[in-house]
């Protein structure tokens, strides 16, 4: 459980930066070199490399060790875990509110019934 939380923390930390999100979006279309990834940004190669290191540490990307140009690949698994985690909270509230809505109907029906009974009792008197 703890390691799962740590993993999520590092995923969210990596995703907190817009440049890194843009890099991931670019990698979703296929592998790319550091030079390719740097192109859309007004950023030096070392600056982009820094971002890549954060993404690599969070296991959001993989870098080839074999090819000379060391292409980067997207690793989607931590994204799915982070997304599942967020989904849990959304689901929690959506479903709780659905249940609350249903339960309120039951409560309202119940509060109406005793009122009628009370009235009948009074009528008898």
């Amino acid at each position, binding site marked *: 459980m703890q390691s799962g939380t740590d993993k999520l923390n590092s995923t969210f930390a990596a995703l907190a930066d817009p440049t890194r999100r843009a890099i991931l979006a670019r990698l979703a279309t296929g592998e790319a070199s550091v030079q390719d990834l740097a192109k859309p940004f007004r950023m030096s190669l070392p600056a982009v490399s820094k971002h890549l290191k954060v993404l690599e540490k969070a296991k959001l990307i993989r870098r080839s060790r074999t090819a000379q140009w060391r292409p980067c690949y997207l690793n989607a698994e931590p994204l799915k875990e982070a997304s599942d985690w967020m989904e849990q909270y959304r689901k929690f509230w959506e479903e*709780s509110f659905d249940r609350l809505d249903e339960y309120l109907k039951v409560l309202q029906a119940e509060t109406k019934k005793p009122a009628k009974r009370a009235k009948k009792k009074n009528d008898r008197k």
Partner: protein
Amino acid sequence: MSSTADREIGTTRVVNAPRPLVWSAWTDTKHIEQWWGPNGFTTTTREFNLSPGGKWLFTMHGPDGTDYRNDVTLTAVTEPELIEYDHGPSPVFHVSVRFEEDGLDRTKLSMRMLFPTKSERDRTVEKFGAIEGQLQTLNRLEEYLASRGSL
């Protein structure tokens, strides 16, 4: 408001019941246990003290038999319009639930969940920042990846 917007999740729901009833559905454990949690979950209350600083300790039982301990500390209780609490155990996030009348027989519930920050002395969880934007990014990425069959 704007300083916290990037680490908030918000949701709003209008329910078909007058505000006093909705308030009691939220503040009486015999009612809460009937609706709290996703489908298939049940809740057992261990302690409930509805006042600022009071504790609400409960266990949620998942449909697969897994138990989830919850530790809530109430921080504000203003009948019939506002409940605020810190929801733990870990990570602790701050929740506010606002009850507004929406006509005679309807109540608007506005819920905000605020994720922890550095000011709460936990540097690691600060990184939950910008969660909503991230979720959108994640969803888009996931959709995209799913459409490519790589997930």
